[in-house]
């Protein structure tokens, strides 16, 4: 997930990124490969082709508004995105993301992050560290509770159910 420095490259997008931008309706009948190829094409046409495993998305408020389609989170997992950092997320998207193993960091200062910079983070502690000497060097985010971290580590709820066999 991370490079040799343990840091992540930042992609910046704006506010109100909706599920149609993440998983366009026209491709919903196809599998996740095809949906992921069109992920964010409306706002960052080069994103799906150029994003690398371990990269992170930093967004404005209200990330993930719209549909319940979890492909809007699964597409980012499929592309190897390590986390999405935003001041706020749509609640349904928030649940979906962790259920498919995508880490979300709620960070009031997310929009201070700039395109291309590198960061490290400690989700359980609620900290983001900027690697390039940017100011502020450290940012606080909401600590991710242990049961959601379990979900991210397992790679989503399906894997967690498989491990626990509690059904």
């Amino acid at each position: 997930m991370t490079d040799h420095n343990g840091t992540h490259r930042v992609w910046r997008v704006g506010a109100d990124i909706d599920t149609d931008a993440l998983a366009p309706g026209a491709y919903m009948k196809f599998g996740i490969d095809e949906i992921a190829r069109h992920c964010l094409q409306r706002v960052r046409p080069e994103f799906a082709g150029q994003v690398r495993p371990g990269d992170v998305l930093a967004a404005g408020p209200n990330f993930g508004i719209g549909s319940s389609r979890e492909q809007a989170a699964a597409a980012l997992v499929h592309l190897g995105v390590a986390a999405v950092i935003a001041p706020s997320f749509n609640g349904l998207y928030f649940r979906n993301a962790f259920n498919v193993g995508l880490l979300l960091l709620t960070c009031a200062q997310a929009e201070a992050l700039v395109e291309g910079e590198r960061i490290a983070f400690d989700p359980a502690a609620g900290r983001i560290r900027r690697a390039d000497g940017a100011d502020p060097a450290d940012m606080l985010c909401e600590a991710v509770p242990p049961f959601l971290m379990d979900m991210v580590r397992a790679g989503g709820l399906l894997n967690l159910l498989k491990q626990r066999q509690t059904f």
Partner: protein
Amino acid sequence: MTRPQTLAQKLIAAACGRSAVDEGEIVTCAVDLAMFHDSSGPRRLQPMLEELGAKLWDPARIVLVIDHYVPESDDESRRIVRIARDWAAGQRLPNVYDSVGICHVVVPQHGHIRPGMFCVGGDSHSPTGGAFGAYMFGIGSTEMLGVAVTGQIWVKVPKTLMMRWRGRLAAGVTAKDMMLHMIGRYGMNGGRYQAVEFCGEAVRALSMQERMTLSNMSAELGSQVGLIAPDETTAAYLREAGVAQELNLDRWRSDADADAEWHDFDADSLAPQVAAPHSPANARDADQYRDVPVQVAYIGACTGAKLEDLRAAASVLRGRRLADGMRLMVAPASSQDQRQAEQEGVMQWLREAGAQVLPTSCGACAGYGGSIPDGASVISTTARNFKGRMGSETAQVYLASPYTVAASAVAGRIADPREFMA
């Protein structure tokens, strides 16, 4: 005496086997009903169930509605619908509604959602069920898998945002206008994934289907649920839907002294609302978009093509014709609503005005239909106008009530329906 509780708290407490719950607590609830459709349901659940080697926790508590990829238009949609039908047969699901309308309308029409229940739906507009005094919210397919095999789900007990509407709506002003107004004021995350409860005399005066429109668009307000305390209107609707059991109406209401965040609105002064591209939060009085030319009008979706919506549109279109070059599409939200609208002459008035009637399904609202032409300015009764949502990246979609959409279809430009209601 237990501490004062909101309706949301009472519903969650009942579902997790407690007498009361506190805001912010994370609790595990037993699910009374899980609803999903052909897009979010079998095609996604079946492979995961197989991978897990698990069985459904209770097929009797599951309702499948095939509404997204019908009528099948290509090989992919045929494949998705076939998976849904085969799976339902294989699992011997007792509750399947195939090509008879949109889940959020069909499921209540068959009496599946009742006051006091705790329900989940595999669709973002699942808060519609809150209109019946049930705690119902949308989840994705993987989380639905968890429910399907365990019958349980976690929730964080929300704060309640009380949306109190005083007064009475004017003729030609609807629940859709109320919602667009609230979304315009608070934005698409104004609900902060808390519980919204709609109350006040203007809400009490609404019919059941109008209440469903309020709860439905709680999704666009960003709340987890959109609740309305059940009353005689609820009970009458459910009796009609074949619900024989006694409803405990007095139990399912917020205590007067329960802690909540209050927001007040005046129904008397509310004007018809229009939300400009590309967000429901761009809602303003329709006057402010007056004379914006439109070429396509769409009356469809769970939000805007129920029987009451069709009646509203027909009351404007009756005896009138569409403007030159205007295309009006009507996709009724359920077969039952369409039949009733036929009997009442409503469908005839719509057709005589020049409307093209499309199959009852999610259709163009979900962008699965492909019926919205590129570059068109569209006025629509649906819930969302994100760029590309209705299938065309270049379409400009305005959202409004069925009255306003019908009036605009006659005028060829965005119009205030009250001018057509002398």
